[in-house]
């Protein structure tokens, strides 16, 4: 099973940092996501994309996680050579993760 089957995400950009939310369709899956989608797993999964630190924030009142990924946008929206300079499509990169 892949993450996109149980959760959705939106990517945001601030400078060279990408923010990736992770929101379960069913709030009951929040505990599972907290346990399974660790910083280490996200780092490994996004190793070709994120070269800096990743911080995970837990937001239990809205049953959501937020991953803040530094050095993720090839210098950022104004000077990156990538097609998707904002990294707007990176939400779906996170959701490609294979989960049990």
């Amino acid at each position: 099973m892949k993450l996109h089957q149980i959760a959705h995400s939106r990517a945001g950009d601030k400078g060279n940092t990408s923010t990736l939310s992770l929101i379960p369709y069913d709030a009951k899956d929040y505990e599972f996501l907290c346990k399974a989608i660790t910083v280490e797993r996200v780092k490994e999964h996004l190793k070709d994309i994120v070269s800096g630190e990743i911080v995970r924030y837990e937001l239990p009142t809205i049953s959501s996680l937020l991953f803040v990924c530094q050095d993720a946008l090839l210098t950022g929206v104004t000077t990156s050579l990538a097609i998707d300079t904002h990294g707007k499509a990176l939400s779906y990169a996170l959701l490609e993760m294979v989960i049990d």
Partner: protein
Amino acid sequence: MKNKIRIGCGAGFSGDRLEPAIILAEQGNLDYLVLECLAERTIALAQKRKRADATKGYDPLLERRIEGLLPILAKNNIRLITNMGAANPIEGAKKIVEIAQKQGISVKVAAVIGDELSDKLVAISDEISKFNNEDFAIALITHHSSLNTPPSSLNTPPSSLISANAYMGVEGILEALRSDAQIIITGRVADPSLFLAPMIHEFGWATDNYNLLGQGTIVGHLLECAGQITGGYFADPITKPVTNLDTLGHPFADVFADGSAIISKVAGTGGVVNLATVKEQLLYEVVNPHAYLTPDVSANFTTVHLEEIGDNQVKVWGGTGQEKPSTLKVSVGYQAGFLGEGEISYAGANALARAQLAGDTLEKRLKADFPDLRTDYVGVSAIHRTDFNHHLEPYEVRLRLAANAATAQKAAIIGEEVEALYTNGPAGGGGARKYVTELVGIVSVLVNRKKVSPEVILF
């Protein structure tokens, strides 16, 4: 003093659709309409237009948006708050007055200025500090004695300063709201402040009541990207279906004096407001949900509660906040040279192999002169920079090459070399395109907030 106000958001970026704001103004029963049209880079581009023509530098869509909205705002007595002033709020305000006169409408306009630091950058350089670890940004400022250099030519060396604009908070807008101006046009103001100001004004909130300011800022943050909370930029036909994206409605919030709010949209418009759309927008572009810094407050998103209380109605409450920062963020725009790009497509048998032969060939020819050359295979791994081991053979592939250069002439070589694959490259390449784009880079610094004072000019 009111107990409830309704604020709509009719644009979430400079190029946003025009008609959702019209629908909000006509049918939304609004007290306030906000148009958020100023991204980080937008203001640097506006600064360049202003330098080429002193009467320009406001949002390029200002005339079209205002011409359509003004009669409705006047009829329904709605106050408009917008950052469409960009690099030139004064000329933007004059243009609005001119449009009103042509339409036979009498309207007062307030321009909020003071964000532009170009002229005083040298004088206040001791008050400027690093944002994150951007040493480069500090170097940009200290190595330039003045921003008032002549317009750039094609051969301008990279890294020359274009603009420096501080993010201001609610102060200037509050002063304008105390006047009888119906339209308030600003330059660089933090996006949520455009929404927070009318709440403070109408409910008489103290500007050091940080819990109220935090909650109000969160409501502003939810509204500021317009369609992103009503199902736009959310829809996925398989997992998150949304109906009628073609008539997507933009949001409004009923905000109460205790800061709680109900996010909704005009009945009959496309899209949806539900828990999922609100959560996605709540966390959008947030780098620290415990301390979301604006010029007005350090807002805490982790205490927010959401509840779906009806069709297309989500209640938001519980946001908190702490004291505002002593510094303001300053966006510094600089000339970052030129981007050269070239693209060509391959389809059918061995499409990827032929695209790769083309890519390898051009890397051999260009790498020495363009060490940062980027090669993308669109349809394979161009967007995520990996295919997560899918390894599917695509039916068609588009090769894309990109590189930075100091001059437009040098940047053009990338596209020229791709185009030359027509006769010199692998079989069956088609649809070659070449582009040269002038780059405006943005970096951030911090400035002591005492060095930035908003000023309101009435027209």
